[in-house]
């Protein structure tokens, strides 16, 4: 299966079943170069998806490619060109970091001397230069994560698959891990597929997301584009919040209110003028008004709220936002969803 050059992962109708249980259901994915977050709750099919694209398990039906290699027939070639950083411990605690990383390079087919040289560079890059001759059993969680990343990048792969890279790290180490991944994406021009439950981290590294739910594709696309679907204006109202809310609703605006804070769907260019006019009419004071920037967490929750409907890519939603919103948005947000 051939995929456009700008796509690192491309699947078409990818399905994986274990007997009656469908782990991946007809996935049509297009992951571009750069950093992409793989999101989904436990049991969403993330692990099965990773195993399938690594060519470790055969798909029941459908096809796909990673870096241009067919996932059904060219698994070893894929695994040679990607760097996989597992979520759980994957290091021998009795080995020194340098030898562990060197061995991971040798397993890719690197000459032992070249692997050793490269292991020094990789460990230096992940901030473990001073710790490389220490036994892994004495490492903290952050140091182990960094060593796993060094193992993954020793051969300078085109694509790094990082499974929960910042899991269990303290704030400082987490920041360092995120900045390291960012350096790889921006300075190294490498692609990253990052599976994580920590939306904040995904947002800091990734431009795109793929959201899986119960084996199905729930959403994919650029985070900014997906966020734009639910643009809102947030106002802080003093006196007359209820009449203002009623007035705005009468004029066809979708309003969410929590006490004095209201979020109004930003569907038109002059929404702010309408809000101010309505406030003036009901005598309410608008003390603060700004564009509400939804976080990835908000986006994730909004999408999860709407599961069960047909999958929409950001393009679908942006091309026809009104219709898409009516289909996808939940009732609580003014849509026709569940």
């Amino acid at each position, binding site marked *: 299966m051939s995929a456009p050059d700008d796509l690192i992962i491309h699947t078409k109708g990818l399905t994986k079943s274990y007997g009656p249980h469908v782990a991946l259901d007809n996935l049509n994915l297009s992951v571009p170069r750069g950093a992409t977050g793989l999101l989904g709750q436990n049991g969403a099919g993330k*692990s099965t998806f*990773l*195993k399938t694209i*690594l060519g*470790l398990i055969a798909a029941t039906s459908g096809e796909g490619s990673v870096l241009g290699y067919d996932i059904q027939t060219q*698994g*070893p*070639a894929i*695994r*040679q060109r990607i760097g*996989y950083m*597992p*979520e*759980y*411990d*994957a*290091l*021998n*605690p*009795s*080995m*020194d970091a340098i*030898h562990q990383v*060197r*061995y*991971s390079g*040798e*397993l*890719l*087919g*690197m*000459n*032992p001397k*070249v692997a050793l040289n*490269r292991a020094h*560079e990789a460990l*230096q*890059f992940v*901030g473990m*230069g001073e710790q490389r001759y220490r036994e892994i059993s004495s490492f903290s969680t952050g140091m182990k994560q960094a060593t796993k990343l060094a*193992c993954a990048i020793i*051969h*300078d792969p085109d694509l790094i698959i990082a*499974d929960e890279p910042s899991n269990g790290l303290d704030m400082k180490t987490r920041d360092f891990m995120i*900045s*390291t991944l960012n*350096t*790889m994406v921006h*300075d*190294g021009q*490498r692609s990253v597929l990052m599976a994580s439950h920590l939306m904040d981290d995904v947002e800091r590294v990734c431009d795109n997301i793929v959201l899986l739910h119960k084996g199905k594709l729930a959403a994919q696309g650029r985070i900014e584009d997906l966020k734009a679907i639910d643009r809102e204006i947030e106002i802080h109202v003093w006196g007359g919040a209820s009449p203002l809310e009623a007035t705005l609703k009468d004029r066809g605006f979708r309003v969410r209110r929590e006490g004095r804070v209201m979020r109004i769907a930003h569907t038109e260019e002059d929404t702010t003028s309408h809000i101010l006019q309505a406030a003036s009419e009901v005598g309410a004071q608008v003390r603060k008004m700004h564009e509400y920037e939804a976080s990835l967490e908000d986006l994730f929750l909004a999408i999860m709220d709407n599961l069960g409907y047909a999958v929409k890519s950001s393009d679908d939603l942006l091309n026809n936002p009104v219709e898409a919103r009516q289909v996808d948005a939940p009732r609580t947000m003014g849509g026709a969803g569940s």
Partner: protein
Amino acid sequence: MSQNERSNPEAPVQGQARMDVAWGANDGDETEASAQTAQAAASGEIFEQHYTPWNGTLNPRWMRNWAILRHHVLGVFSKGHRPWSMPTRIFILITFLAAMGDAALTLVSSLFGESELHTIFGVSRDNLYGHVLGFFPRNTLYYPLIAALLVGGVISEDRQHGTSALYFSRPVSRFDYVGMKFLAVALIQAIVVLLTYCLYFLTEILAFGRGWAWMVDVFPMFVAGLLAGVLLIFTYTSIGLSLSSVSRGRFFPGIGLLAILFGTKTMASIVKNLFEREVLYLFSPYDCLAHVGQTIMGTQPTYTQYPWTYSLVALIAMNATALYVLATRVASMEVTRE
């Protein structure tokens, strides 16, 4: 302020002293590298992170397999490879020296000219058999214990530490993984069993000045002994690794192997002594090996109630079962999580 003045406990603390504490003495720090460090420190960073690309070539499958084999075998001798435990390494050394006992005594007999000593320890059909398949002390104290120590964690620790992900996320097939581990464990045993066997034979040739006629005469017997040794190593390794593949620690596989080897033999001995029936020896791996070994080496058989082919079939069945368990369990090893 001089170095001595600054080192004085009464000296005032100032910036220069703090820098020395943080980065070490400034003596000899005038290189370019240290200048960079000082610059980074001023901005509050420990190091500058640069991603270094690598454009080397990855070698094919045989090099990856060689890496696995090398990692395991060299681990016995040096640091930086698979960290075999110290008791295992010491025991291998002790056993190697102990297994050379007959070679040493052959040498002694040649020096003293004691023909009786040579009759007891020199190369003969029974002594060649005894070197490989003799029950006491070699197959009670040496070879099973070495096998138990080696197979203990060789696969089970990959499950325990998650290092199986290190293999399977790379272009290493499960067949190559288990094949190389099998070969590595077998090779280490071969150092103790077969290398000492060859050295024993060589000692006889050198110490007694054996000529070509003797060598040609004894060579078939020698080869039969090698074959018996290969069978012994293969059987111990396959049973041991199958136990290792169903476990997550190093204790169970080792103890399990010893329990199978000695438990079945003890039970069969008890039944033979009580009821004069040898049939239970067919369940004892050691006795099946001994029976087949006696046949191929042409020594006096000690199992008289059934033909050697029964033992051969039992041996094949045992190995087939062990390899089936091994293959099944290794096939189920996970790359994403265990």
